[in-house]
């Protein structure tokens, strides 16, 4: 186990990165305030690595990782963790899949053993595959088919992207999910679930030397593999505004919009996150104040930047007030945006957003689980967990001129996509 770097955090706490001979990276952060640990494994594989016809396999596979292994019958993994008083879960997105465990701190060796076991010895059987496919299809209905916001987000990505796999939903489509077979799942496991494609994050009350020794003991023999390089398809430049319209069982118009933005490693990314907050981040933000408070055109408004490795979207979501239309809002929004693009942000807006970012930063690192997730995600996406701790410093250097220039470069019609949903009653084909 080789020590790569240490990063100091608040009041002398330290985040440390180690690497093993087989490529597995280990990030440790001691927090002895409670007798618990958060143990997470992040794999650098997500839905962007999928092929057409098998969309949803990364997420379905995540479900399968909770099934039997060579040494654990079906159901024993979860039961063992809960018997120790712990909780286990996982999530998949476009660039990564991660497995999270929160346990009492005296269960460290247990979780290291269990996680190493399923990284190396997962057993895939048809009954479990078939059952989990049904569960995932149920999940799709919950999050997309019967959820208006989930549906609109899915449509936005399908519209905004032409070539990049980010256009497809991580949960996949029903047809694809049903078509995934045992061989697909086994190949997926063999290809991507390797130590050199993963990092472990351990936060909480543990002894560092013991933790490293245990990890070395249980993972050290697992061989690295050749991970296929992801070649990012070149997304053609958008030539004009894109728009689509749907009629759904909802009470008021809804609109989801997106501007194309760079990936997280681009120097403009954090500035765009900052600008999104100035414009859409809560009551005092420019557009919330104008459209929700003053004009009451909208009943809600929010926005965020996708934390993706490759270029993503600044996503804006709004509910229209009763009797107001999405078209009315869109026209008004464009006028207001143009006005903003002429003047840029105000100094008071920049100061306010800086203060908010700082409070949000610390709030997002309260529990062991939150710390582990933030560190893990940054390491998976930015490639270096230290970027998380650079935020405070970077935003200190943002100034009016720079933010204005970034906003002008990205917030224009050539990168803009809009999806609107109107109530079924307004459908022209409804009797």
């Amino acid at each position, binding site marked *: 186990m080789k020590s790569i770097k240490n990063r100091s955090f608040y009041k002398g706490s330290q985040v440390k990165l180690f690497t093993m001979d087989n490529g597995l990276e280990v990030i440790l952060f001691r927090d002895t305030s*409670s007798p618990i640990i958060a143990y997470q494994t992040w794999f650098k594989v997500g839905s962007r690595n999928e092929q057409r016809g098998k969309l949803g396999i990364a997420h379905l596979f995540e479900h399968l990782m909770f099934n039997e292994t060579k040494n654990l019958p079906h159901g024993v993994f979860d*039961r063992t963790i*809960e018997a120790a*008083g712990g909780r286990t879960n996982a999530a998949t997105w476009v660039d990564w899949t991660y497995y999270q465990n929160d346990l009492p701190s005296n269960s460290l060796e247990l979780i290291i053993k269990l996680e190493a076991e399923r990284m190396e010895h997962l057993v895939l059987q048809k009954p479990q595959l078939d059952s989990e496919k049904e569960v995932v299809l149920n*999940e799709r209905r919950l999050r997309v088919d019967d*959820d208006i916001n989930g549906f609109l987000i899915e449509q936005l990505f399908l519209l905004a992207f032409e070539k990049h796999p980010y256009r497809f939903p991580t949960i996949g489509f029903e047809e694809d999910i049903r078509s995934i077979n045992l061989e697909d799942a086994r190949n997926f496991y063999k290809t991507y679930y390797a130590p050199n494609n993963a990092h472990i994050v351990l936060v909480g009350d543990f002894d560092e030397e013991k933790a490293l020794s245990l990890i070395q003991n249980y993972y050290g023999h697992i061989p690295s593999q050749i991970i296929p390089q992801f070649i990012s398809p070149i997304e053609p430049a958008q030539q004009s505004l894109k728009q689509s319209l749907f009629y759904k069982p909802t009470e008021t118009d809804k609109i989801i919009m997106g501007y194309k933005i760079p990936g997280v490693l681009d120097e403009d990314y954090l500035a765009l996150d900052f600008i999104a907050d100035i414009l859409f981040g809560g009551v005092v933000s420019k557009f919330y104040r104008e459209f929700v408070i003053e004009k009451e055109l909208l009943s809600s408004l929010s926005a965020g930047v996708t934390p993706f490795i490759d270029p993503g979207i600044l996503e804006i979501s709004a*509910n229209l007030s009763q009797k107001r239309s999405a078209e009315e809002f869109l026209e008004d929004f464009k006028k207001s945006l143009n006005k903003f693009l002429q003047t840029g942000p105000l100094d008071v807006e920049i100061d306010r957003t800086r*203060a908010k970012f700082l409070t949000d930063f*610390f709030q997002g690192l309260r529990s062991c689980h939150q710390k582990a997730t933030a560190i893990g995600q940054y390491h998976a996406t930015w490639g270096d967990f230290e970027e998380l701790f650079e935020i405070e410093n970077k935003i200190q250097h943002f100034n009016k001129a720079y933010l204005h220039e970034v906003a002008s470069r990205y917030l224009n019609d050539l990168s803009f996509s809009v999806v609107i949903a109107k109530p079924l009653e307004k459908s022209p084909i409804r009797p």
Partner: protein
Amino acid sequence: MINKRHVFPFTICEQRTDLPLCKLQVTFSKGSATDQSSIEGNAVFTGELMVRSIDGASYIQIKEALAQLGAKLSVYTGLESTTFELVCLKQNLPQAKKWLKHALLKPSYSEEEAQRIKREMLEELIAMQDDDASLASHAFTKELFKNHSYGVNTRGTMNSIGQLSTAIAQNWYQNHLSAQNAIFGAAGDISQSELDEFANEVIPFLPSNQSFTQEHRQITPQNLTNPQLLIVDKPERTQTQVFIGHIAPGFGSPLFLPLHIGLTAFGGTFTSRLMREIRSKRGLSYGVSAALSPHQDCSALVMHVYPFAEQAAQTLELMLSLYDDFRTQGLQKEEIDFAKNFLSSSHPFDMQTPEQKLRYKTKLVLLGAPIELAEDMPSQIEKITPHQINEAILTILKPCNVLISMLCSKELVSNQIEKSPVLSQIRSQIISSQEIY
């Protein structure tokens, strides 16, 4: 175990300085359950008005001042509590806390803001039509606690919101917020002496309501005497949201903790009996659960599942069958030992951060429980015997009391129900999802 008479005002301080974050809050033991039927939503309305109209400052002025400090002032209104909460960085606490103090002591009750809040509340009710789980859950709660204040529409109704006014809000403030029902709480980089100083600045100026008591209400909600199925109809649903349950003993009852342990084994973890039978074996639902939701007077025993529309009846039959087996046969020792161990060993997660500790202890005080339970809960769980657990299950669970609320598209589900020998025997009624608010 409980029914402790706490001395108010009460203070709870969970100091920890590992991060420069502070939370300062004041919780009052009154909430939406005080709303009369014609003015449902009043407690929520009043709380919002208090944080949005302070000492002559407008909503935007307040928000701007707080935003400059990176601070957040919020209000959370539940059935039996209202909490005013401030979150900020330590360095900004001296300036930020005055906004919390003045929200409590100098609410301005701006007419303009009151009207805006009412319009927002109406829009919110409309937006809630998009949340299937919330609609089904609310329909369930409303029916379960029919004719009792626990069935109140906390966010109001399309009719009641129009009746709200600044005068009614002021009246609510005077009659329900007082030093005699206040819990002052702090979490993070804030000391007991700082909390006491804040409390001492506020307490003398809160409404003094000498007749205010902490007595629990004597009236207990009544269970159904026959099972009932409430279908909430909404178009184009490919999935159903189902809530099943009935009224159970409150936190203070000796049956509560045994029943809580029993329900944890039955449906409270990922490897519980319900999860195994519904999700793992059959893939019928992405999730399924069973738990007690405690109030001062009673609890609601609630099971939740969300199957495909085409499997709604099949899943519901299976849920009722599992409930029946649970009721009549109880739990095996292994299941009981597992649940007890899980609850004891996972207790540190409920108490990990200072904010979580504060929330847990505040809840104990609101329920009239000893605050020592926050640390002592694992040993209380350990003391409960398998016999007590199975006795509680047998005593409390009754099929005649069961209420089922199912949000679905009735044209996809009605036929299944008619054909089911079990479900067709249950008295049913159909309402539109739009009738709920």
